[in-house]
Each structure stands twice: as structure tokens, then as C-alpha cells.
């Protein structure tokens, strides 16, 4: 019997109404949508970067460099630990051995105190972060697996935080910054006019330190190839000073860090004597150290080192006690602003490498939207006309369902705040073509049943019943493809999978419930002798 339960009618009505309500904000401008009364849904579809323009960057944290730094730090803590007690523990050959830190005790009787001192390296944690082993007098301290995980996790979290601060300083709207996998960070910044600047900002570690120069030896001599550097010094190139052969000038810099950029609290680009410079301010600790160093070294050059390059090495003319200073160098306004930004945001714990970049200009995005819109509307119109031509009145009913289907896709996308991408639009267009499939299956079946001599009502009834399993079987297979695409696809492809899956589900609903409701209602009203199909 052709019967449509009351609750199903109510359900169809509610879904249709909700669909219209949730899809509606997409027809408004962003401002108008935001000003809708609070009880109305006001979320619009999220446009992917390929549609609104923007940059997608996949970054990788340099894990080796993180571990290397931490081993270096471990050497320092082991040294501190061994020296700390009332009488020093004698050791030799303290240094990095492969992935661990090793040293040898001088006296056997110190071994107990050594174990005690090494135990104190460890803060209270659930899992041990270090593992100490010894073979006679030779000791090794290694990071445990848990310790390595901890180090990497904190380095990545810190990197994400710094990247976020830097991008926020750029003033772009709604950047997405998220961890991906073990050591990667995905950055998505919509609507950006200068992706190269973004990359430069993210790609800079921005570790700033202040060093004294070694004035006893000449840099030109010590830094030549194959020369031995004097103990406790290093050769660093200048950022932009060049010699006659276009090679960067080298500085012979004392290794010891006099003041660390970590102690900076503020940095701003300003002008000094018509030159762009970066002014900075230290916190209390930094200000005291900076004051001490400058007081003791008046007349000496003081190198400002950023990421192992010397920005400049001005001579200290007088002690700087207030904790404020100025970095001069060959800056233009933009580069001074960028350096100030980097110093404000803080240094990255390790360098980041850009593994993948996808930048789409706003212009291309707008073109893609326009083309996608046109193609969608055209395909809707063509399919609607075709269905009406093929199935007459039943075709028109399927067309109403198709229209509702589009509304529902838009509604679900807005509701889930899923991202609409260009392949996503393709998914919608594809669904337009395939959405009518369920109706085609049903109509063909009804037609066949009527030919087999059934009455209109009985033909409709068994047409729907018989087509149902086919529809479900056929759609589930496509749904499987969509789910796998979502799982393994990246970026825009995921968007395609989302719209395809949503489209499949909504089209099943509209074909099975909505057109059926219309067909059944019409049957009851018109009581036809023959189906116009």
C-alpha cells in the first residue's frame, strides 16, 4: 500500500526548513551574514585556500638539530653536576659520543657521588628521561626513548607557538597552524599578498646573541681556509658587508654568549639619523647583564649575531644601563620591521624547512569561484531540463528534489564548517549528475512495473521497494571511495571527498523521502488510471 507515515512528512518538512535556514547565510555578504539575528544560523561555508587565495606551507622541524642542541645542553648540565659538590669530582674527556654524552672518572672512589650527582639531573617525571650506564670508570648518559619524545614534543610545540606569534604579528586573518605527524607543522594563511615574506619570516630561526670580538687575532688570518681558530672563538660571516670579491666579510667572534636575545621583551623598528634601525628593550636580567658587559668593555666592538651571522659590530661608546639599545645595520624599513617582529616573537628552537608550498593568488581564487559557480548553475539547469524532458511530471518532482539536494549540501557544509575547495565544487557538480540516479532507478522501475500490468499505486509502491536495495548498494560503493579519499587525500582533495560524501547522503534522502512524498501525495489527489511516466 502506498502510505507515507505522518512522522516522515514532518521529518521531510523539518529537514527542508533547516536546510534552507542553514544554507541561507551563504547568499549574503559576509557583513550581512554576521548581522543576522542571533537565533538564526549565520555560518557561511569555509572557502579553501584555492578559492579565497592564500598560502599553504608544510614545515618540518629539524629534529637532528634539536637533539644536537639538547645533547650540548646535557654536556653542560653534566659538567655543572660534577662540579657542584663540596669537593669536585675529577673527570676527563667529557663530550658528545654519538647520541649520548660520555666522560671518564679520574678516581674510582668518586663513583658513588657521581651516581648521586647524575641522578639530580633528572627533574621529577613519570618516566625517566635519562639513562646512565657505566663500564668501570667510563660513563655514558643517554636520553631514553621517552626523553627523546619529550624533547621533540616540546620543540615542536614551541615552534608552533613561535610560528603562530610571528604570523599573528603580520596581522593576517584566521591563520591555521597545526601539528601534523611527528615533526611537521601545517600553516595555512588565507588572503596574503606576499608569500615570500611569510616564508622568510617562518624560515628564520631568529636566534640573537651578543658577543665580544677577539681583538688579539686578525679575522682575515684566523678565518682563512685550513687555519686553526684561536681557542674559544668562531668565524662568522657578516649579514651584508661584502669584501672586494663579493664574499661576505668574516668576523672572529668569541664563543661566549654575553647577552642572549631570549631576554628581550620588546623590539621596534624606528629611525635614527634617517636610518632604519631596530630598538630593543631587555628584561631585568638582560638589562643587568647588558649593563655589566657594556660597562666593562667600553671602547670594544660588540657583535650582534643573528642566526650565526653578524648583523653589525658597533663599538661600545659608553655603558648602556637602562636595558634599552639599538641595532643598526644596513636595514631598509621593511627589513627593520621584520627583524623587530622576529625578535618580539622569539626564536625558534630549531630551523624549519618548507617541504611543500601551495600559494594561490586572490585573483585566481576569485576566477575559480566564478567558473565553478557558472559550471554548477549550468549543470543544474541542464540536468533539470533533461529530467523534465525524460520523465515529464515525475522529472519535475525529481528536479525539486535536486534543488533541495543542493540546498542541503550547502547547509551541511556550512553547519559542519567544512572547507569548500575547487575539487569540492567539482564534487558538487558530479553529485548533481549522479543525484538524479536514485530517482532514475526508481522511475525506471515504476515504469517497468506498470508495464507488467500493475495498477499505478501498486507500481509506484513496488518500484520504490525494489529500487531501494539497488540504490543503497550502489551508493555505498561510491561512499567507500569518498571515505578513502578523505583519509588519504590532502588539502583540496579532502574537500572533494567531503562534498561527494555529503552529496551522496543528501541525494539518497531526497530521492527516497522527498520525491516519494511528492509522488505519493500526487497519487492520492489525482488517482490516475495511468502513470504519466
Amino acid at each position: 500500500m502506498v502510505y507515507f507515515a505522518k512522522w516522515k512528512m514532518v521529518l521531510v518538512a523539518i529537514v527542508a526548513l533547516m536546510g534552507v535556514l542553514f544554507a541561507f547565510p551563504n547568499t549574503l555578504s559576509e557583513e550581512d551574514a554576521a548581522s543576522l539575528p542571533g537565533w538564526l544560523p549565520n555560518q557561511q561555508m569555509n572557502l579553501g585556500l584555492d578559492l579565497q587565495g592564500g598560502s599553504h606551507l608544510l614545515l618540518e622541524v629539524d629534529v637532528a638539530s634539536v637533539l644536537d642542541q639538547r645533547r650540548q645542553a646535557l654536556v653542560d648540565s653534566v659538567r655543572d653536576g660534577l662540579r657542584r659538590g663540596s669537593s669536585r669530582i675529577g673527570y676527563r674527556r667529557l663530550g658528545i659520543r654519538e647520541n649520548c654524552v660520555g666522560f671518564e672518572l679520574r678516581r674510582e672512589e668518586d663513583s658513588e657521588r657521581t651516581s648521586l650527582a647524575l641522578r639530580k639531573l633528572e627533574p621529577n617525571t613519570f618516566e625517566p628521561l635519562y639513562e646512565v650506564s657505566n663500564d668501570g670508570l667510563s660513563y655514558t648518559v643517554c636520553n631514553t626513548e621517552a626523553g627523546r619524545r619529550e624533547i621533540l614534543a616540546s620543540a615542536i610545540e614551541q615552534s608552533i607557538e613561535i610560528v603562530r606569534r610571528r604570523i599573528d604579528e603580520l596581522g593576517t586573518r584566521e591563520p591555521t597552524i597545526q601539528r601534523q605527524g611527528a615533526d611537521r607543522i601545517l600553516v595555512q594563511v588565507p588572503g596574503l599578498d606576499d608569500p615570500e615574506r611569510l616564508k622568510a619570516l617562518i624560515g628564520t630561526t631568529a636566534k640573537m646573541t651578543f658577543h665580544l670580538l677577539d681583538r688579539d687575532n686578525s679575522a682575515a688570518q684566523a678565518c682563512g681556509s685550513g687555519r686553526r681558530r684561536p681557542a674559544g672563538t668562531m668565524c662568522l660571516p657578516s649579514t651584508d658587508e661584502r669584501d672586494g670579491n663579493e664574499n661576505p666579510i668574516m668576523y672572529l667572534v668569541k664563543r661566549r654568549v654575553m647577552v642572549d636575545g631570549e631576554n628581550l621583551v620588546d623590539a621596534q623598528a624606528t629611525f635614527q639619523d634617517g636610518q632604519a634601525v631596530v630598538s630593543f628593550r631587555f628584561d631585568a636580567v638582560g638589562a643587568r647583564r647588558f649593563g655589566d658587559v657594556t660597562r666593562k668593555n667600553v671602547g670594544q666592538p660588540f657583535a650582534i649575531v643573528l642566526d650565526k651571522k653578524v648583523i653589525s659590530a658597533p663599538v661600545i661608546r659608553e655603558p648602556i644601563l637602562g636595558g634599552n639599545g639599538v641595532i643598526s645595520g644596513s636595514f631598509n624599513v621593511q627589513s627593520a620591521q621584520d627583524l623587530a617582529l622576529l625578535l618580539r616573537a622569539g626564536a625558534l628552537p630549531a630551523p624549519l624547512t618548507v617541504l611543500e608550498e601551495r600559494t594561490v593568488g586572490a585573483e585566481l581564487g576569485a576566477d575559480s569561484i566564478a567558473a565553478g559557480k557558472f559550471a554548477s548553475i549550468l549543470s543544474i539547469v541542464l540536468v533539470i531540463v533533461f529530467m523534465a524532458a525524460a520523465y515529464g511530471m515525475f522529472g519535475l518532482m525529481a528536479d525539486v528534489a535536486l534543488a533541495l539536494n543542493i540546498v542541503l549540501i550547502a547547509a551541511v557544509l556550512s553547519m559542519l564548517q567544512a572547507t569548500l575547495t575547487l575539487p569540492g565544487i567539482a564534487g558538487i557538480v558530479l553529485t548533481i549528475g549522479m543525484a538524479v540516479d536514485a530517482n532514475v532507478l526508481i522511475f525506471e522501475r515504476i515504469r517497468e512495473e506498470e508495464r507488467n500490468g500493475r495498477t499505478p499505486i501498486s507500481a509506484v509502491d513496488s518500484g520504490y521497494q525494489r529500487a531501494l536495495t539497488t540504490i543503497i548498494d550502489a551508493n555505498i560503493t561510491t561512499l567507500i571511495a569518498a571515505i578513502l579519499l578523505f583519509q588519504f587525500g590532502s588539502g583540496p582533495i579532502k574537500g572533494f571527498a567531503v562534498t561527494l560524501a555529503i552529496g551522496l547522503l543528501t541525494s539518497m534522502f531526497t530521492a527516497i523521502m522527498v520525491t516519494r512524498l511528492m509522488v505519493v501525495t500526487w497519487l492520492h489527489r489525482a488517482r490516475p488510471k495511468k502513470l504519466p511516466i
Partner: protein
Amino acid sequence: MRLVSLVPVGTKIDFMRFRKIAGVLSLVFVVASAGLFFVKGLNFGIDFRGGILMEIRAPQAADMAKLRTTLTGLKLGEVQLQEFGQPTDVLIRIERQPGGEKGQQIAVERAKAALGDEVSYRRTEFVGPKVGGELIEAGITAVLLALAAMLVYIWFRFEWQFGVGAVAALLHDVVLTIGIFSLLGLEFNLSTVAAILTIAGYSINDTVVVYDRVRENLRKFKQMSIYDLLNLSINGTLSRTLLTSVTTLIALGALYFFGGEVIKGFSFAMIWGVVVGTYSSIFIAVPLLVYMKLRRSGLIVGDDTESSPTGNPADQG
């Protein structure tokens, strides 16, 4: 009432008679596709191969020769230029640079510096060697898992013979799609993989509809020969098969011609897939069932929804 009718009512085309010709034809195409794939290979995009892609727009019609000289002068290896949609727009592909991830980035900067400020950059993409390898892996995994999942589903819903037939038809469609991409030298990238997976879904979808009818007819006409029964099933679903293909092709055609250059390759793959998928579900998937022993009993999966006798004597059997 019906204005267009793609298929006249009650066709009795002997599709099964074409099964050998179709089989040979398909075999030739499959072998040719595989041959092309191994000999000529695919024009992999930067998604898989790594490298750089830039879409630029010049103020006037772009001077391709000049652009080519400028870019080759940078010695960045193989550089491909292609007009993209309109004379002002050019798509530039630069092969993967040595020097890992950093190498790509430096090359992008050099290319931008060489092209100057006159052109606007509509798109800049680069994929480093690491990610490229992973994308290939993810793509292959996705396709294989999809095939396996669909096979399992069909097996679960039907009998194993149907699963084998459906996956054979599906593989046929996928291989032919790869073949046409190789033949025409079209760029094979991530969205092509997406298209292939969708083609797989569509192909199975199409096959399932016909198989559903086969299963139903097996139950209904217990005396009919398999040959006739398969013919009856194809004819019974022919109208639907063609109608759905037509609406899908209409939609895809709109996308191909008006959806913009970026999506063109994707739409092309889909159109090809729909055409091939429709063919294979009629001429490959169903005829294959002849060669595998179909059991008539034990096929009752799900409840029989017969509500009134159809007056066919076979129903009583």
C-alpha cells in the same frame, strides 16, 4: 508525456553476442594502456615528482619565446611553458631541483626575480622530494584500499563471482584511464588520483545496478539460460544506465568547458571514466558472469520483496 527517450521500451538487444568482440577489444585496450604506461610513462605533475609550478599572468599576451629564454637562462633544468586558458596566462613547470627542500625554494625565488614585477603570480606551488614520495605512497594506498574495500562489499552483498566481475570491470576502467593519460601526455597529479577513485566508485555503482537485476532475475526465472538471463538483465537496466550516464556527462561537460583551467584535467578524467565505466558494466562486468558458475540457490541475500505474483510461471518454481 515523455519528450526524450534514449532507449525504446522493452529492448531485446543481444548484448551477450558482442561479448567476445568486446572482450578482445578491451583486452587490446588494456594491453595498449599497460604498454603505454611502461614505455611512454605518465606525465607526473609536481605532486608526485616534486618540482615547481607557477601560473603567471602577463599584462598583455605573454611572449612565450622571451619567457622561455629568460627561464632557461637560469639553468634550472627542464622548464615547460604552456599557455593556460588565455593568452596572458602561462603555466610554468620547473623540474625538481637538486639540494633537497631548500633547493626548490631558492629556485622559486630566482625564477620570480627573473620574471620581474610585471607579471602577477596567480599560483606558486612547490613540492619537495620528501613530500612527493609520500604523496605517491598515499595515492597508491588509497586506490588499492578502495579496490579491496569495494571487492569485499560486493562479495558480502552478492556472491564472489559478482565481486570478481565488478573488480575486473573496475580495473579495466582504471587501467584505461591511466592509458589515456599516458597517450595524451596529460598531467597526472593528485586530482587525477581523486578522479580515478571516483571513477572506481562510479564504475562499481553502474555495475552493481545491473548485477542487482541479475540477482533478482536469477531468483525469478529459474529455468532461463544464463545467457538469456544476463541479456534480459542488461536490457532491463539499459534505460537507467544510459540516463544516468547522460546526466552525469552533462554535469561534467559543464565543468569541463566552463569550470576553469585548473579543474580541466580532472573533469576530463571523469568524463572518460564515465564513458568507459558505462561500457564496461554492460560489456565486461555482466558477460564475465557467464564464465563463472553462478549458483542459483543460496543467492537469497536480503528479503525477497515480492508482494504480488507477476504472473510469470517461473515464479512458482
